[in-house]
């Protein structure tokens, strides 16, 4: 119960902090709209028979990853700059429980972007939002957000030794957009790319959201996404333990 309270309060606290930042809110909403606009123009002008809602949903979920990738990569560096990293690591609570709600809050901010993109598609491009299975959709969206937050957590932990971790986080924005199938069907990729796509929770998240809206097997996709998210958290905690032991032994936590 104490852990749940810590996770929920951490999430709420960081949500409030992030909503005060124009980089995370205004830019987080507007920036994916540029990519969505291009995608809408391209799919409208092209010969592809897929419905525009297919592209609209993909572009909408791009925003969730967009708000997470750079910010999650930078999560530990931010604490370093604030001078709070050592305090948080030294606290009796495991540091993972402090960091996980931070990255999930970053992904949650992406819901603004998701709504804005769907609204943009409807208002400007006339893309009707019709959800075939509302219950599955209501489950798929939070599952996608949480698993993307979990992927951000794993990234944040993996980049703990990098001073310029934000750049690495930023570097992963396009690749995940590309190979998770947000705007490109996985069948178009070379065969060796597909296993990488399958290992990414956003792939299953967008499949679940599309399945709920357009028809498919959303519940199975939600289950796979959730399982992958849990795996990311478990791997992240294991990595975190090793990183903290090493940082304490070598006194390298602050990277100064």
């Amino acid at each position, binding site marked *: 119960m104490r852990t749940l309270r810590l996770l929920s309060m951490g999430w709420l606290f960081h949500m409030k902090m992030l909503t005060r930042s124009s980089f995370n809110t205004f830019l987080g909403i507007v920036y994916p709209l*540029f990519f969505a606009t*291009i995608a809408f123009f*391209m799919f409208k002008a092209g010969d592809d028979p897929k419905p525009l809602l297919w592209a609209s949903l993909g572009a909408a979920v791009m925003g969730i990853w967009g708000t997470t990738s750079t910010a999650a990569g930078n999560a530990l560096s931010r604490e370093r700059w604030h001078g709070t990293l050592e305090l948080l690591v030294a606290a009796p609570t495991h540091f993972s429980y402090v960091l996980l709600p931070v990255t999930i809050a970053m992904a949650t901010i992406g819901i603004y972007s998701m709504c804005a993109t769907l609204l943009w598609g409807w208002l400007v491009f006339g893309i009707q939002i019709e959800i075939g299975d509302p219950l599955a959709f209501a489950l798929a969206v939070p599952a996608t957000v949480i698993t993307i937050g979990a992927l951000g957590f794993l990234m944040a932990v993996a980049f703990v030794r990098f001073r310029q971790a934000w750049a*690495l986080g930023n570097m992963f924005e396009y690749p995940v957009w590309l190979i998770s199938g947000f705007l490109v069907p996985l069948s178009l*990729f070379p065969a060796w790319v597909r296993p990488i796509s399958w290992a990414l929770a956003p792939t299953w998240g967008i499949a679940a959201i599309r399945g709920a809206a357009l028809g498919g097997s959303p519940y199975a996709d939600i289950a796979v996404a959730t399982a992958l998210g849990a795996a990311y958290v478990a791997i992240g905690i294991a990595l975190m333990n090793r990183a903290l032991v090493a940082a304490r032994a070598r006194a390298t936590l602050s990277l100064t």
Partner: protein
Amino acid sequence: MNSVRVFFVGGLTSYRALFGWLSPWVFIPSLVVAPVFQILLFVYIGRSAQLESDEFYVIGNAIQYASIPCLFAMTQTIAGERFQQTLGYILISPARRLPLYVGRALPVVLNGFLTAAVALVVGGVIVGIDVPASSWAPIAFVTLVCAFSCTGLGLLNAGCGLVVRENAVLSNIIFGVLLVFSGSNVPIDQLPAWMQSVSEVIPFTHGIEAARRLADGETFGDVAGLVGEEAVIGVVYGAVGYTVIRAMEILSRRWATLERA
């Protein structure tokens, strides 16, 4: 002579200072890897949408990505000084402003060109586009002109940086506008009329079209008009940017807001 020194030495020092923080751990992910993946993203979206050829997206996105270094590095010449608390010292110095600012722009142009050129070559090799060997040199020149014109816009962006706190937000939004309006991914004739009008007056539109035509086998003479328009756009943005910087500098002295923004 002093102005020449400020232009070259000041520009070089600023460039080196920029790369003091822009280490390989920033440079390679941001300016080598990211543009290649931007190219791949739009190449595959293009294949999915069945709209244009791979070459269309490789050239459009490689050149358009020059906007990242051109916009961010140019803005950083102002924001970085403020962050280091040295902006006030620079602005009270007797150095002439034109060589001071334009000297800082020169390395940015070269950096933008280098970023776009690497993205063009690497992206082209990965995707497998076929460009005549005789076209590479003129395309390189067009890319340089595009980097110049976007640095002009970057100068204007840097001027806004004197009064706007969120430089990164502004630079990202300008990047997005260029991505949508420059024809890097959506053919200009597919855009609504008002967007086409905007496309005419922003960096990259003419340069990207020129580069695509060169890649299709046209000679430099055929696209010289487009390249000239791209260069003129750069000069106009640069002149407006310089004027804005000077105006903001004066206002910031009058209102004592230099460090506040």
